[in-house]
């Protein structure tokens, strides 16, 4: 995730302050996650045609918010087998053997497995399979994604009914013997379009007849089915060979077949399933297209009264997924003479068709086509399809605006920002917001908020979203789902937050826009009810111990971003500025130190804080008495939030949440105003220091970094500095690499630099702490870094620490005894050239190493918004371009990952965490999925 934390570090004193960036604040994150909505959209439309074929279209969002549209066609006819089918499952015009090619491919595969021949009626297998696929899709991923998908699926079913009602033609009552087919669809309501015949002749486009079953069965044609887009690898966990079998449809169809099938499949090894899963998944068929076509050729349909059993499978799939990639030869093999896919202009034209179901089908089809296909998205844009879709958002029929919204969500997803801009340019943002106000349909709301989430990932649109949507999103989604009430009813107990998809999408959107700089922050802080609701939601999460989900993560990230620069940006902040802040908090320290040391760092177990006793006296700081409860943005920096963040830090297993919570503390403890004094003191009194120190052992780089910087900011408070020096030094030092080899954790450069800067902060003005540093065996590491690190930034930061240590004359004796001499504490020869890279070679200020500030290397980023990428974690130093590029890249990549697989974050993250400290519980925890959402039995 692209989080960008921005931070500014804190200087320990005024002098350095001037040179550094601001006080330290830190983190603001911009997360740009574009997730497609995590919604799964599944639209299922069923169309029954005279030929007895039922088609179902579904659009799904893959877990990651990707949507896939699937269409499944089911045949209702029972005579299916009697009709010769072509390879694609369509009746063979020539009357040649139906199963010919099909069988071939099957044989090929199955024979390999030593299985029997398997001849299943295609229709059957298709159906089942697709059906199956869709479930596979929905399940097996992380729970979150699953949910999403399911939800969509569900809705999709519901849709069927209404939409097609008027036109419905066929009746499909399925006798019990067709268990699978029928139930899923509601044929009654569907309307049928005549099946079109082919004016397109046999040359028509591939309808991808074989559809999914083919996919599975014909491994020989891999091109067609590429697992990636649909690759929910997670699925595999539960797939056994058997599960992978294609569905078999009707029991009646010959048991022999079935048995065979099974047998064949059984022969498959377990590894196979993995591949299959995704492959299968994709391929649904696509009814809509067929429908559309049919409509245009009404006269044709009589022809197929026979069992058109199979049909459709994949047509869309091919289109959509393969785009132009498929191989012509295959196409020709599979070409279905009778149908052709409507081309894009036709589909877009259909959006304006007078018949509503045609509009909605066209939109659904577009959604499907756009799924993971940037080319088609672009084409839709260039063909001016986007304004038409946006126009449909105001369509009174829910089916129409829903499908239009689904298409827009897919179009808005991805890296092509032009698509996002196109939506904005035709006033899509206000249209979406308007629809959000109007509709109560949960699926539509998910689609809208998902689309907005996607749009919010593009910087220039953030403010537009704030202007048009912020208050509506807050009122319509955030507040109601957070459980917060303006006027709490005395009688009712406080409501808990509901982690709905809509809430997740909306919070994701706000999270993104909250990184858009000072103005965005100001607007969001002043958005009525927003901060209150977010805080309530987080408290509810803590109360329910449900802190690992994406919604919580989004909320904490928003809070963190809004906490950035509060001391400078909130109205009236000047009244709280504390000129003496630099000394004040610190001066209070010494005399009390002995008293509470134990309490504050009473062992690692301090987590289960029992704050009781100490709570009352905030050390030297008296919290201001408030006449009335604070509300709105004031809540951001009330000392009470410290406990909330500490609870999250203690309990959450989600690295992003941990990072954000630490970042929030970092931001809040950064400023030089009264509130940050309180925050720093409160963090101590709430026994937050040990919690933070423990997180230094996290395997997540980002967490370690955020925590290190938070500790640095907290140590502006003198007592905190003393405590951190005494108790955290060892953990800080253990995160440092030993010279070139990066041992235990192998943290990223930024993290190492952050830790070094924190150490520097702690040892500055405290020879006691410098002594602790020496005792923690840090000198050896520091010297090694100073001399051999490949990173100029690390070298520089280590050098600063060394110089500071050497400046304590009282320690030199001890150092000398350990075999160190002055040369070890001076910038190394090698360091100099490295440093030069950043500009200043010299370090003239030995006592207070001064880090150069950003020297205009910031290339990206605008003004105020300091996405984390822009500033090094240390805040003092400049990130060189290379770094930045990397980061941006990494950021993007991550974004993408996130977009697609928000759920997999944890897993992904592991790759980044090159750690081998199994002991850290945080990591392990990530592996433990909360609960199975569905279990094979």
């Amino acid at each position: 995730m692209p989080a960008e934390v921005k931070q500014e570090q804190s200087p320990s004193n005024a002098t350095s302050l001037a040179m550094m960036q601001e006080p330290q604040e830190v983190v603001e994150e911009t997360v740009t996650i574009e997730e497609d909505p995590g919604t799964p959209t599944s639209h299922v439309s069923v169309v029954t045609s005279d030929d007895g074929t039922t088609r179902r279209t579904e659009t799904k969002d893959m877990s990651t918010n990707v949507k896939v549209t699937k269409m499944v066609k089911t045949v209702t006819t029972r005579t299916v087998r009697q009709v010769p089918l072509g390879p694609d499952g369509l009746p063979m015009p020539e009357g040649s053997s139906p199963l010919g090619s099909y069988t071939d491919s099957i044989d090929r595969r199955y024979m390999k497995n030593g299985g029997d021949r398997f001849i299943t009626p295609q229709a059957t297998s298709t159906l089942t399979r697709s059906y199956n696929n869709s479930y596979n899709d929905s399940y097996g991923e992380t729970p979150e994604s699953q949910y999403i998908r399911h939800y969509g699926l569900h809705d999709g079913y519901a849709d069927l009914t209404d939409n097609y009602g008027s036109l419905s033609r066929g009746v499909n009552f399925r006798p019990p013997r067709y268990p699978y087919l029928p139930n899923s669809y509601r044929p009654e309501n569907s309307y049928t379009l005549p099946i079109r015949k082919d004016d397109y002749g046999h040359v028509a486009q591939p309808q991808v007849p074989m559809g999914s079953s083919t996919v599975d069965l014909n491994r020989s044609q891999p091109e067609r089915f590429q697992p990636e887009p649909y690759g929910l690898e997670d699925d595999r966990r539960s797939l056994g060979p058997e599960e992978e079998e294609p569905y078999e449809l009707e029991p009646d169809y010959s048991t022999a077949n079935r048995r065979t099938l099974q047998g064949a499949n059984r022969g498959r090894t377990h590894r196979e399933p993995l591949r299959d899963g995704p492959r299968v998944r994709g391929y649904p068929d696509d009814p809509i297209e067929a429908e559309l076509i049919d409509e245009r050729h009404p006269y044709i349909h009589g022809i197929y009264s026979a069992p058109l059993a199979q049909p459709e499978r994949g047509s869309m799939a091919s289109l959509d997924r393969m785009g132009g990639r498929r191989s012509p030869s295959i196409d020709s093999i599979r070409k279905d003479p009778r149908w052709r896919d409507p081309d894009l202009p036709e589909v877009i034209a259909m959006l304006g068709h007078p018949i509503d179901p045609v509009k909605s089908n066209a939109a659904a089809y577009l959604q499907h086509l756009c799924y993971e296909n940037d080319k088609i998205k672009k084409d839709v844009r260039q063909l001016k399809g986007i304004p038409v879709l946006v126009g449909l958002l105001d369509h009174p029929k829910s089916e129409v605006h829903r499908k239009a919204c689904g298409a827009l969500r897919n179009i808005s997803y991805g890296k092509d920002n032009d698509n996002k801009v196109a939506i904005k340019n035709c006033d899509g943002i206000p249209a979406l917001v308007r629809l959000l106000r109007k509709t109560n349909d949960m699926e539509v709301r998910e689609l809208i908020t998902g689309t907005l989430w996607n749009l919010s990932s593009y910087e220039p649109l953030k403010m537009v979203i704030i202007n048009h949507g912020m208050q509506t999103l807050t009122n319509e989604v955030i507040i109601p789902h957070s459980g917060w009430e303006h006027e709490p009813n005395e009688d009712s107990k406080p409501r808990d937050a509901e982690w709905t998809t809509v809430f997740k999408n909306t919070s994701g959107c706000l999270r993104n826009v909250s990184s858009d700089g000072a103005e965005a922050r100001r607007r969001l802080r002043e958005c009525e009810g927003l901060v209150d609701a977010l805080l309530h939601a987080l408290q509810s999460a803590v109360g329910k111990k449900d802190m690992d989900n994406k919604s919580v993560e989004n909320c904490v990230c928003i809070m963190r971003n809004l906490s950035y620069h509060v001391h400078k940006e909130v109205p009236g902040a000047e009244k709280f500025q504390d000129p003496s802040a630099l000394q004040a908090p610190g001066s209070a320290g010494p005399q009390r130190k002995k008293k509470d040391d134990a309490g504050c760092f009473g062992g690692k177990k301090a987590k289960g804080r029992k704050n009781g006793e100490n709570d009352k006296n905030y050390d030297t700081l008296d919290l201001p008495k408030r006449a009335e409860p604070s509300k709105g943005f004031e809540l951001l920096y009330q000392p009470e939030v410290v406990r909330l963040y500490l609870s999250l830090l203690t309990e959450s297993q989600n690295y992003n949440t941990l990072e954000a919570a630490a970042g929030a503390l970092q931001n809040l403890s950064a400023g030089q105003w009264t509130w940050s004094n309180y925050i720093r003191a409160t963090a101590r009194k709430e026994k937050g220091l040990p919690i933070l120190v423990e997180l230094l052992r996290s395997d997540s780089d980002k967490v370690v970094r955020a925590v290190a910087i938070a500790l640095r900011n907290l140590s502006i408070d003198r007592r905190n500095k003393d405590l951190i020096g005494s108790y955290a030094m060892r953990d800080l030092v253990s995160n440092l690499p030993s010279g070139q080899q990066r041992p235990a954790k192998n943290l990223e450069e930024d993290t190492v630099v952050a830790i070094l800067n924190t150490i520097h902060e702690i040892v500055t003005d405290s020879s006691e702490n410098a002594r602790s540093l020496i005792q923690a065996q840090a000198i050896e590491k520091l010297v090694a870094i100073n001399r051999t690190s490949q990173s100029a930034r690390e070298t520089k930061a280590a050098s600063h620490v060394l110089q500071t240590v050497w400046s304590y004359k009282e320690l030199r004796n001890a150092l000398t005894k350990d075999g160190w001499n002055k040369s070890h504490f001076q910038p190394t020869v090698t360091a100099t050239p490295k440093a030069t890279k950043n500009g200043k070679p010299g370090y003239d200020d030995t006592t207070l190493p001064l880090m150069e500030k950003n020297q205009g290397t910031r290339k990206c980023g605008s003004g105020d918004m300091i996405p984390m990428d822009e500033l090094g974690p240390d805040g003092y130093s400049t990130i060189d371009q290379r770094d930045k590029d990397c980061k941006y890249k990494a950021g993007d990549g991550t974004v993408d990952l996130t977009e697609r697989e928000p759920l997999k974050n944890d897993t992904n993250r592991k790759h980044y965490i090159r750690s081998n400290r199994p002991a850290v519980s945080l990591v392990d925890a990530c592996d433990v999925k909360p609960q199975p959402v569905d279990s094979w039995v």
Partner: protein
Amino acid sequence: MSHHIPGQPVTAVVQRVEIQKLRQGDNLILGFSIGGGIDQEPEHNPFSEDKTDKGIYVTRITPGGPAEKADLRIGDKIMQVNGWDMTVVTHDQARKRLTNKKEGVVRLLVTRKSLEEAVKHSMGNGPKQ
């Protein structure tokens, strides 16, 4: 079926489904998967009509597997397993109940929308999931 309130008598059209477990190596397999349970988020259950229903639902069926042969269907809500109530159990409890190694056969009582509809309108209406 989906509006069942835990603790209240259930009125539902149910069907008995008896599944003979299939032995695969050391495992006894039923060939379907379940979702739901009182510890799960019911609103995510795609099969339930009442989104607060925390019942156990059949989410997937292995083609050709024992469950399929027994005519269990995706979306079926499992009311009982060998006489044990499944309407107010955790996901894991349900799983364990189903996978009891000592039992080679499970007798389920399931309810499904199509059954109810079938009762209501005898013919002409397709079942809906």
